[in-house]
């Protein structure tokens, strides 16, 4: 549907703000380098204050980068005002114009482009069909539910056929169930419209569910860029591993490396790993082990003592001590598994492919 889907390139972009309390300058975004291909769905993910919204607002033009340049479809856009940029944003608060009805809200951008009335009517009707709001043209915005308002906001952004669609935490004002429905809707509509989308969220499951690529940010710095699979199974550091899903961090040293595989020593026990990254023998290392990748067994890799065992319905939740380290284990569908009780001696078991070495 988009006239031309555009890529976005962010080169060495920084944004500096002043802390209102101390008066100190700080980097809200520091030396960000991001390349987004046309038609891709990319999430900017991170805790609040990590700079993700600032990046989005710089792409839209509401903030000006203090360093670096932003390109939209190959064109440098630093000097363009928001109204001259080929972007359209879906706001967290929906930001619908309260004095217009749904039709006029969606038609707003088209009217500014001096399109003739018949074409406007056709386009608005089509787009309202696409977002599932057919027949609602004459409603006022406050007569809609949150989810419907979000659809209007999406329709309004889509209808002007922008080169890139920007989402600023669009679902955070919706309840949990609706959030899941809407994110699937957004993904479907983005695919149908074939449009580049950049989506800011602090909800990792949302990011996992809809993105082609996830950009994880931490304190103004890009921590990792990768597919959902990559950021989950090959996190670049402890921050990413901890932010996406749950992780156990086992600290130890690399004792030997052979043909890409190696042995790490954790709490005095040898643990075989399938890759060691850039590490050499003798280096300190951290093993990232997902709670659902490990299981509790009578035989296994690391001996442990069970310190917590709790039935949660669809899984059994364990915490065990391996020497001085706490390890969380999630045992799904525990009905037919052996249940360990607090105080039991057991082993943490996992295969070399299930650990990621940092």
């Amino acid at each position, binding site marked *: 549907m988009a006239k031309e889907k555009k890529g976005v390139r962010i080169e060495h972009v*920084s*944004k*500096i703000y002043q802390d209102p309390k101390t008066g100190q*300058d700080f*980097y809200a975004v520091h030396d960000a380098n991001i390349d987004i291909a046309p038609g891709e769905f990319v999430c900017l993910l991170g805790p609040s204050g990590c700079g993700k919204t600032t990046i989005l607002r710089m792409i*839209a*033009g*509401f*903030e*000006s*980068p*203090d*360093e670096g340049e932003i390109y939209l479809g190959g064109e440098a856009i*630093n*000097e*363009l*005002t*928001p*109204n*001259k*940029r080929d*972007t*359209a*944003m879906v*706001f*967290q*608060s929906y*930001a*619908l*114009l*309260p*004095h217009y009805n749904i039709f006029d809200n969606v038609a*707003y*951008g088209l009217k*500014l*482009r001096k399109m003739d009335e018949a074409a406007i009517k056709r386009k608005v009707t089509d787009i309202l069909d696409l977002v599932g709001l057919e027949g609602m043209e*004459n*409603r*006022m*915005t*406050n*007569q809609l539910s949150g989810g419907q308002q979000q659809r209007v*906001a999406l329709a*309004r*952004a889509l209808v*002007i056929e922008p080169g890139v669609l920007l989402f600023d935490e669009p679902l955070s004002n919706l309840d949990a169930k609706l959030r899941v429905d809407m994110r699937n809707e957004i993904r479907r509509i983005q695919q149908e419209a074939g449009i580049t989308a950049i989506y800011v969220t602090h909800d990792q499951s949302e990011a996992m569910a809809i993105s082609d690529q996830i950009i994880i940010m931490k304190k103004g710095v890009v921590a990792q860029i990768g597919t959902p699979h990559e950021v989950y199974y090959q996190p670049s550091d402890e921050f990413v591993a901890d932010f996406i899903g749950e992780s156990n961090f086992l600290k130890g040293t690399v004792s030997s490396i052979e043909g890409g595989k190696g042995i790490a020593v954790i709490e005095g026990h040898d643990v075989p790993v399938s890759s060691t990254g850039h590490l050499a023998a003798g280096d300190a290392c951290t093993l990232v082990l997902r709670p659902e990748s490990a299981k509790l067994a009578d035989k296994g890799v690391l001996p442990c003592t069970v310190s917590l065992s709790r039935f949660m319905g669809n899984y059994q939740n364990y915490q065990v001590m391996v020497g001085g380290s706490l390890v969380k284990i999630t045992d799904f569908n525990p009905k037919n598994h052996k249940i360990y009780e607090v105080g039991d001696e057991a082993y943490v078991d996992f295969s070399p492919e299930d650990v990621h070495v940092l």
Partner: protein
Amino acid sequence: MATAQGASLDRKKLLADPIMVTTIVVLVVFLTLFIIYPLVILLVDSIVGPSGITLDIFKSIMAKGSFRKAIANTLVIGAATGVLSTLIGLLFAYVEEYVALRTKFVSNLFKVVSVLPVVSPPFVLSLSMILLFGRSGIISKTLLGIQDSNIYGMRSIIIIQTMTFFPVCYMMLKGLLKNIDPSLEEAARDMGASRWKVFTSVTLPLLLPGLGNAFLVTVMESIADFANPMMIGGNVDTLATSIYLQITGNYDKQGAAAMAVILLSITFIMFFVQKYILEAKATATLTGKASRQRMLIADRSVRVPLVILCSAVAIFVIAMYLCVPYGSVIKTWGRDYTLTWKWYEKVFVNYRGGQAFTDSFIMAFIASPLTALLSMIISYLVVKKRFALKGFIEFASMLAMAVPGTVLGVGFIRGYANGLFRTGALQFIYGTTAILIIVFIVRSLPTGTRSGISALRQIDKSIEESAYDMGANSFEVFMTVTLPLIKDSFLSGLVTAFVRSITAISAVILVVTPATLLITVQINEYANRGEFAVACAFSTILILITYAAVLAMNIFIRYFGTSKAQEED
């Protein structure tokens, strides 16, 4: 760190918007020419003599005993009015917020009292004071039989100003009391404090900055008040009346400029204390909304005396206002109370009343939309935009609030009678209706801007951003989004500007020429001549006009206001 690129990009984006740049330039020029420049010229005027910079002008006016007396009078009246207004305002606010009022009657009385000073010309109370207590007053002569009652003087000014200004304190303090969390007071009660102890140890300390704020606002109003001291001061002069007399009686414009500088310095100091110290504190101690409804005091021993006291004051004030229309329809005040229309006939047939009303009305009618639009544009820029001159625009438009009308009037005379800096530039506007309209605009701008700013702060920033993002430029955003959303505020700004303009006197009385007749100036003149019935007739018509304007606004907002439009299907 290199914030330079961001700043220069912001600047470039701003410059890419020609309408915006033009608007800012026009605003800056307007504010400089008509607010900053008249004040600067006063300062220049009062320290530059024939042989360079000198303090001789100040020395010579300070040498006059009458002027020193005027300063003292002004401060005494200001302080007394400030204290009394704050106390009565607090009483009203407390009763409204803390006491269980059994009938709607009392709260309606309060409402009327708070609206009356807004819609009536400034000197109405002075007029009725004379009618009630003057030489042929109903109370002084008819009831008490006093033959030579002398109502003129400082005491009357203080009483009149208190009655005029306490509703402002009442409204300010009511807002603050509403925000005190009742659980604070309940906690104190729970620990064994008496009701009086709660008031002195919890409520009052929380309210203290607010009381200081209300006090200073009133003192500033009192000091700047021209009409009441003029009408009822008799031989007691204040700074504002001295300045007026210095120009109209002594033809000493330079002396008047120096006096204006002194008056201005006093109000400026108060303005800065009020705005930057007290206003912040007053709201900071009372953060957030009250968590739940307050248990109102139903105790008869508290309720009955307080309600009676407030009602008595309120009824007295309302009666004062009613005196003026009554005075306009009876034959001879103090002697013959038969009804007659003859004063109205006189107003229109003998006293060119028709022209006065037309002139005042047309000028106020032109000034008010301009003021409303200007103040909305200023608030829009101040709240929603970032640019270099924003600080100046905000400062200058707020500064006008601290400038007494008389000072502004002298500033316009000195600044434009011989053109800009006496070069003859822009001299042509002097003596025209245009300059009167500009004076009206400048006088009403701060109130409009303040209400515009608070209205705009309520609007989610992203609504306007979304419009930008859709491709609208600043002008389109302002016209299609901002203005429709603050329609109510715009409208009330429009009516406030109209009411303020049509009832204004302090500044325009100095700038007006005989070619233009202003109602307020006429009322002042006839009252000074002793033709009170004519003054009453003029005032009554004026009150009707302003009341009609306010009524029209309320009706319009009810049927076409923002909230209404959003409810429609």
